[in-house]
């Protein structure tokens, strides 16, 4: 187990370096002056421009810039935004909000998606199965921003069950509606994955054995069937953590939330290279760690999988 984790961590290093370099190249390496968008039409004050160029090592080759930037990250120095505010501080404001939002979405996905998928799989071909299949297809097909507008309009404004926008502090209660919007598509996939997986395992030998042993039905379903059906779902959930952080760009724009998505989107519009690279780097790290955790979870769910 220990060697496996170590090997996976070592494998993560080239992937991490490659992904961050790719982003770095897209933001800073493309032709054009990265500072062009900063000062608008009038152009920058030469002294400011010079100090910024020195700070980002803009005159030097891209791999040197990248190397200097990574050296900074190791000491948690993410550089400064155009308004000379440390990026670390911006992240400290933005991340807690989006982590709360993603947690709400993640819980909704698990607490609604898995039980409904299980139910549809157990009642295959019945009414509930058909409704789940049709409902998920609709949710997947309607773009998330349209779902967002509709829920905001009907639940937030017409019925006033939820607050239609989110205040600066973004307390948990206001994040419920955005959480539902952010979760909607992944929830639909999780329902479908759980359903397919449950249907596949329903006639497995171990399920028949468990029933033949006279175990109560709920025990067969939860301990035997569900646990064995969870592997594709857990895989999806792991990939989804990164997608939730990125998908927050759309959700946060609809509900005017100033989390990772909102801040990142503003940074992209303004061309704030350092902020973009820093945020994306963190998201890539979160994504890679989540995938590692998923692989470790496999062994817990299915003892036949040995991690060596």
């Amino acid at each position, binding site marked *: 187990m220990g060697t496996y984790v170590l090997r996976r961590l070592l494998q993560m290093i080239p992937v991490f370096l490659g992904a961050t370099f790719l*982003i770095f190249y897209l*933001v800073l390496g493309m032709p054009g002056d990265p500072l062009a968008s900063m000062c608008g039409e009038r152009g920058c004050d030469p002294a400011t421009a010079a100090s910024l160029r020195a700070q980002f090592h803009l005159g030097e080759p891209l791999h040197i810039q990248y190397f200097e930037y990574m050296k900074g990250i190791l000491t948690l120095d993410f550089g400064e935004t155009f308004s000379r505010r440390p990026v670390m501080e911006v992240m400290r404001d933005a991340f807690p909000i989006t982590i709360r939002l993603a947690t709400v979405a993640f819980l909704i996905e698990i607490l609604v998606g898995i039980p409904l998928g299980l139910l549809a799989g157990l009642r295959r071909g019945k009414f509930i199965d058909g409704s789940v299949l049709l409902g998920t297809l609709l949710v997947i*097909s309607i773009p998330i*921003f349209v779902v967002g507008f509709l829920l905001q*309009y009907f639940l937030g404004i017409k019925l006033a069950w939820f607050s239609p926008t989110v205040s600066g502090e973004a307390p948990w209660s206001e994040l419920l509606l955005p959480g539902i919007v952010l979760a909607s598509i992944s929830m639909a996939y999780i329902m479908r994955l759980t359903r397919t997986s449950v249907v596949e395992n329903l006639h497995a030998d171990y399920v028949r054995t468990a029933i033949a042993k006279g175990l109560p039905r709920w025990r067969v379903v939860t301990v035997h069937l569900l646990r064995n059906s969870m592997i594709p779902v857990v895989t999806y959930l792991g990939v989804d953590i990164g*997608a939730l952080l990125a998908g927050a760009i759309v959700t946060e724009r609809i509900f005017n939330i100033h989390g990772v998505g909102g801040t990142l989107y503003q940074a992209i519009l303004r061309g704030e290279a350092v902020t973009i690279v820093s945020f994306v780097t963190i998201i890539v790290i979160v994504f890679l760690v989540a995938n590692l955790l998923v692989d470790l979870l496999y062994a817990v769910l299915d003892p036949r999988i040995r991690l060596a």
Partner: protein
Amino acid sequence: MPSPTNVLTPPEDVAAALPLGASADSARVDRPRSLWSDAWHDLRRNPMFLISAALILLLIVIAVFPGLFTSTDPKFCDLTHYNGGRAPGHPFGFDRQGCDIYSRVIHGARASVSVGILVTSGVVLIGGVIGALAAFYGGWLDAVLSRFTDVFLAIPLLLGAIVFLQAFPFRNIWTVVAAIVLLGWPSVARIMRGAVFSVKESDFVTAARALGASDMRILSRHILPNAIAPVIVVATISLGLFIVLEATLSYLGIGLPNSTVSWGGDIDAAQSSLRSAPHVLFFPSAALSITVLAFMLLGDAVRDALDPKLR
């Protein structure tokens, strides 16, 4: 592909009378019909396939010949009709600029359909080649290509596409296609790699190699036809998702330029008048959703036909 009228081919009704499930699987071994003619046989009888295929055909006709469906210029706008409702000759009403919504919905199909088709072709081509080469040659090439795939897979699709697009000073349909292809190919590569891996140890590959067939011939004539099925399924379903992604990018104001009539852009523009004129938002959203739904249904039907076990 219709089944050839071969003496060895059993009549269709005999095949249809065979029970589904395990016995059908064992029966297939004796039957000379290929997976493809079998799948086509199933598809023709699937109402979901017929409906979605008809819808997609209609969409493609609309995208290629929008003039057949409307003679109103989508860019002819009259502000006196600002957010106006239905009027004679204007069945969907008018948007914020006073443009005819029906005409814009018809003309918007081209952007969505062409982005969807171009991106899917690009993703299948790049992902397919990289995945097939990695699995076929294995060893260090596989290791390098797999890590390379992982690098692109580590960047969320939407996020990567936004970062890519902001790097361009100009925006057009090709930058959007390039952005989605650049970030979208790894999932196809992974599926292709898995499929080729499972086929390449087969006896018929060994036999072809023993007969002295070249690598290229083995790969293209023997392995690919037997490994392409999962890629086709994923490509069909993804086509719908790529159309959503394009609309999302246009909604964020970073996708197609405003000069291109597109559903995503129109939805974005309609957002501000949602409360006073919901119909402006409704029609482009409905067109987008129906299109995506059609491709997802088609993908589901193709998957069921190619893999009866999943039913």
